[in-house]
């Protein structure tokens, strides 16, 4: 039998399985032995089994919005990603600390604005952000929680340290893949699961439901998940979560506001809704308050929320903490609100509204990653080393035109993990998105969604741009 790892070459980045001298890391010994025991052919057939079962189960995302639009799987790599428990503990505590501070920041911004008065962050950064909702001023949501669900993106830098790339506080997606990936991997690696202590993630739906119910003071609150509908790219996930939680999946047209309260239209009456896990953006929530053209929204929903008649998850206005310029201040928030030192670091970020930083950015575009402050999904960004002269010129104009709208970061050559692509094991870059639930307590199931850039040397992991995923094993 051939050894699939015999020609494995780790790159210049931190490789999660091997040291630079090709010696295997302690945490990956058993995975390595397992892979070697299988051989290439076996890996091939297991990968095939994974792809087929994902299609069969309809674990897909929509690519186009037309009739019979293309549905694609978000390919799950047959090789899992392993993170030892000791390292996970650092991530977990770091994230809990971060979310606590972010929530206090949002509450402060929409109420007393102490942090602005104390001059810790320039007021104009907040007021000029398109994600700042002045309509939220003076609001304290149920239990003072704004960011109930967060999907923080972490990468591992050249030294192997996990650093935070983005916070993603606006209905992050991907958790259904995390849960389904695990189910599929259990079938593919049943013996391995029996032998080793891989921490389970199956409690996620329980944590989610408890959090949602916690937000209402009613004895037996009615919870619903609000989705834009079957043509939304993440519809599979909306439906999946409704099934796991056993709550109704609703669309805006199912909801109606009466006497400032939210109801669902049923076959014989109106049924009151107390908590809504909404998977539509702030701008589309309520045509009376936000985008008047929105057909997705429910007229009057925002007022009902503001008056405390319905809990919205995440709360509108949470996006202010997602602005990529505001992100640079998160370590400061942790010191300011919690009087603690941040346990997780940020990636070095250049602020284009600062003269010195702007000059550096404009002169060093080929070396930097430039991002629009409110875009996601790999859109609105320039990856310097992979860009053309024309693209660089275009971004230079954009940045000079509206410096507040852009930030830049050095290209982080983040960690690689052995991945099975085109019949070979190669080093591919991976990130990590754990899902943090903020209810009565802050809970994180061990692991998260690891996304992998399947193209060799590529640093883009987004599903829309050739990314795949890996099951993430926290091993004790």
């Amino acid at each position, binding site marked *: 039998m051939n050894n699939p790892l015999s020609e494995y070459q780790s790159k210049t980045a931190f490789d999660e399985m091997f040291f630079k001298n090709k010696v295997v890391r302690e945490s990956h010994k058993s995975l390595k032995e397992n892979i070697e025991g299988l051989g290439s052919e076996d890996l091939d057939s297991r990968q095939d089994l994974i792809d087929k079962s994902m*299609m069969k189960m309809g674990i897909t995302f929509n690519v186009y919005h037309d009739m019979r639009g293309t549905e694609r799987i978000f390919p799950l790599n047959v090789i899992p990603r392993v993170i030892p428990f000791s390292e996970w503990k650092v991530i977990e505590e770091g994230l809990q600390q971060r979310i606590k501070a972010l929530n206090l920041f949002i509450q402060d911004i929409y109420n007393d604005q102490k942090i602005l008065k104390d001059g810790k962050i320039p007021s104009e950064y907040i007021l000029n952000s398109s994600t700042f909702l002045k309509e939220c001023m003076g609001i304290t949501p149920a239990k003072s929680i704004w960011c109930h669900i967060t999907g923080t993106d972490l990468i591992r830098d050249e030294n192997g340290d996990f650093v935070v790339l983005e916070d993603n506080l606006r209905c992050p997606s991907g958790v259904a893949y995390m849960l389904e990936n695990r189910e599929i991997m259990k079938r593919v690696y049943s013996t391995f699961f029996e032998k080793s202590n891989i921490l389970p993630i199956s409690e996620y739906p329980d944590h989610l439901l408890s959090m949602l119910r916690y937000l209402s003071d009613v004895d037996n609150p009615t919870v619903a998940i609000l989705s834009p509908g079957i043509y939304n790219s993440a519809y599979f996930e909306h439906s999946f979560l409704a099934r796991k939680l056993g709550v109704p999946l609703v669309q805006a047209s*199912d909801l109606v506001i009466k006497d400032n309260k939210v109801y669902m239209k*049923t076959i014989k009456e109106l049924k009151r809704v107390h908590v809504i896990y909404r998977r539509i953006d702030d701008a589309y929530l309520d045509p009376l308050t936000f985008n008047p053209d929105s057909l997705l929204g429910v007229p009057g929903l925002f007022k009902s929320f503001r008056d405390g008649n319905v809990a919205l998850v995440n709360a509108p206005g949470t996006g202010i903490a997602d602005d990529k310029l505001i992100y640079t201040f998160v370590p400061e928030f942790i010191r300011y609100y919690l009087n603690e030192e941040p346990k997780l670091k940020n990636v070095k970020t250049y602020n284009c509204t600062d003269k010195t930083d702007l000059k550096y950015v404009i002169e060093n575009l080929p070396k930097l990653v430039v991002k629009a402050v409110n875009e996601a999904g790999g859109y609105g960004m320039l990856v310097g080393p992979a860009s053309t002269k024309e693209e660089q010129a275009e971004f230079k104009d954009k940045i000079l035109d509206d410096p507040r709208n852009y930030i830049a970061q050095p290209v982080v050559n983040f960690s690689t993990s052995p991945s099975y692509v085109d019949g070979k094991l190669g080093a591919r870059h991976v990130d990590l998105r754990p899902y943090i639930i903020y209810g009565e307590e802050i809970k994180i199931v061990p692991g998260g969604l690891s996304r992998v850039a399947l193209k060799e040397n590529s640093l883009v992991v987004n599903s829309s741009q050739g990314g795949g995923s890996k099951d993430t094993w926290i091993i004790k």
Partner: protein
Amino acid sequence: MDNQITLSRVANSLYWMGRHSERAESLIRILDAHLKLSMDLSTGTQYFWKAILSAVGCLDSYTEKYKTIERDNVLHTLILDSECSESLLNVIWHARENARSIRERITAEMWLDINELYLRISGFSESPKLDGDALLELLDDLKLRTRSFQGGWFHTMSHNKEWQFSQLGMYIERTDQISRIIDNFHRTLTELKDDASTSLFKWRAVLDSLSATEMYQKTYGVMTVNSILEFVFLNNELPRSIRFSIQAAHTALLNITENKGGSFQSNVEKKLGRMKANFDFIDIKEISQFGIEEYNERIQSRIAEVHDLIKITFFELSEEKVLSYTN
């Protein structure tokens, strides 16, 4: 608890999932019966192909594309033509889209089956050539998968109100389909002016289309046109007779409205109840005197009216109702 809430939109999707999956199954059975019939016929097969195109509602889109009725073109239109809204491919797609929009309300087994059904036919539509053998194999396969879907539907999903809506859709559709099949056969055979002795085996294709031949044989023994009509219109034990389907639709409706029977509380109960009563108290002689064609037309228009009332009663919560609602 939450699972007792039936959203109007969800009820609507389940109703349509029931209708479309039944429409798909009906088409599969008709195709199967006709492929076999056409092998027995030396001439005149085009009349029967035309009758199916018409029964299914694909005749217009067929004649737009082709001048003459040819088996292969008909099959392609009926099974795989994405431009024909009633082709099997489209009907299955609709059934699956409805299921997908309420995936969290049905069971995982049901979803797996209906998804596979769609993947199978859409995969087939990409293969270059449609020969008879491959087609029969596909039909067999689809038949098996629809049965499997129905098995999951009946035996894994709770028989709650949502389920009743899917049953209501299924039986409303089935009533309509059976009526169309009888209607189009009747017209074709009248048009052909065959005498009864030579056309009996053609009438048998009506039974085949409803998978009712063996049950007919057991019930009547001898084949006559009159008995065949009686069986498919009025038998209350045959799952694919009109009377059986109307009774089942009526039962589903009363389960939804929690009406113990006896009378009606809404227009939809009144309409469907009368249809049921009419079938309970009519015989085949009276239907024949009324005219098979006319009677079928009446069934189809009544079914359309029932459908509209279902829509108004359950799926569209009017402004008035919302405004007048008090908690």
